[in-house]
């Protein structure tokens, strides 16, 4: 228990990932939904770093590095999309976003 092994990190990562999933599923405000997707990516990064550490291999850190880059890019595009939507509709609630169905 006190010896922190890889599994600890993996479990933590999973718990965080699940929290992210909760956010993704329950958030209706798109901005806050995007927060949750950040959590998803971050939780995985912990694992990558941990694996990298325990295997003594840098590849995991590389992966985490690129994940961070991707997360950042997504933020930019996501915000851009939210801005255009907000300009037209003055809200960012996804419940108002269901003109297409069936």
């Amino acid at each position, binding site marked *: 228990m006190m010896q922190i092994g890889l599994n600890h990190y*993996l479990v933590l990562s999973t718990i965080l990932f699940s929290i992210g999933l909760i956010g993704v599923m329950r958030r209706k405000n798109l901005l806050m939904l995007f927060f949750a997707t950040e959590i998803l990516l971050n939780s*995985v990064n912990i694992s990558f770093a941990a694996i990298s550490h325990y295997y003594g291999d840098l*590849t*995991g850190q590389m992966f985490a590095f690129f994940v961070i880059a*991707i997360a950042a890019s997504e933020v930019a595009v996501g915000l*851009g*999309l939210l801005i*255009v939507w907000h300009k037209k509709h003055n809200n960012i609630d996804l419940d108002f976003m269901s003109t297409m169905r069936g």
Partner: protein
Amino acid sequence: MLSPINVSIGSLNLITLAPMILPIVGALFILIIDMFKSGLDKSMFVMLSLLVLGIDFALLIESAGMFRANGTIMGVFDVMLVDGLAILSQFIIVIASMLFIPLALSQKRFHEFSYPEFFALFLFMIAGFQFMVATDNLILIFVGLETASLALYTLIAMHNRDKSFEAAVKYFTMGALAAGFYSFGSMVFYALTGSIEINQIATVLAGNNYADIGFVLVGVVFLLASFGFKLSMVPFHTWTPDVYEGSSAALAGYMSIVPKIAAFVVAMRLFEFLIHSGVVWLEAVLYILVIVTMTMANIWALVQTDVKRMLAYSSISHAGFVMAAILIGTTQSNSALFLYWVLFSFTNLGAFSMLWISRQKNLLPGQSSDHTFEKFAGLVKISPVAASIMALFMLSLAGIPPFSLFWGKLYMIGSAVSAGYTVLALAMALNSAIAGYYYIKLIVYMFMKDPVVGYRGDVSSINATMSLRVIIGIATVGTIFVFLALNPLLEFITSFVYNSGY
């Protein structure tokens, strides 16, 4: 101390990068031109993109020649992997893109084409897809995928109307979730094998004889979810109809082809070694996914009232059909996948182009969406040629011989039969029959009903220009006469797939 690493340029095989670099350079070039002189006409950018893609195509032929001579080439610290699959899929990507880009020259003015950035983003996207297929490194796949996806979200949104924003946001959000799944899945494999290269992963897993099957499966689940999203497998498909409806018809047609072939190639690389190693679970799950995707998508397509949405569901169904190739996992089935997709791209792009040329700016009174079935009612009386061509694409999609998709279906079902998946083959065949209904429905509207009173007669070709017609012409010719070119095509594909070890 860290010793400096000596790298000879020759050993990097930079040529492997060439087909991807080219669109990037082209995109940057377009941005630079725009910087110097703004307000240039879209036709210039279209032609420029076409040129770039043309050269790219030539480069691909070059790499194909190299592949023939030397087999699979690794390049740039073994990150790049130029094997048959990569080349074939890049061919499809580039050709489909070349067919797509002239569609920008529509009669009506649409918002996205007024941006030079549109073309730049488009070329970046192509590069992204090319990277995605030409590597077995999970990082590069991820980065390429995201590059392409982010560009694609933007392209959709740039259509600039409510539905396209909605579509882009939906696509984006689900894409973000899928990215999360992807990274989680990769993490599991990394944790298992200490590697993020698919080859290496396969070797390590085979080395310890899949001792941690539970872990493997968790990784597979997340990757499957992620690619299920990209390939719109049920139940990860929910974005597809909305996104297709929200984007312009041309882009929707493009989306039904290019992102999917890229995803297919990655899925092939990822899943087939697992299936071959006897991961029964994956086989069973893929079986279920394939059947459910084909059938449910077909059933939903039955009840659609909008042609574009119908085609969206039909694309899902076709993707499910092709997914069977990965489940089967023989050389024949993998060749069938590529053959199918080549033929599908001609036909489907043609069908979406037909919608594109009939796209009016605002909805007519009583019309609930852009391409309702009623809009096409009695088309044969107004424009027999347009009706015939549209009918041709529908028949091809339905798998009526001798039109292109029939041959794809034939070879695909044949591969299923040869591999002993007879029940699957039957399911595939029967699904084609269900699908027959909604394709025929459009033909029924066009040929057997009278035009809706009050619709303008030219509605079927309101957006037509020469370049659109040319594209449709190419698609038509391809759809009808492909059987003449089938043998060389099949031989080409088979040899490439076989020599890549799939």
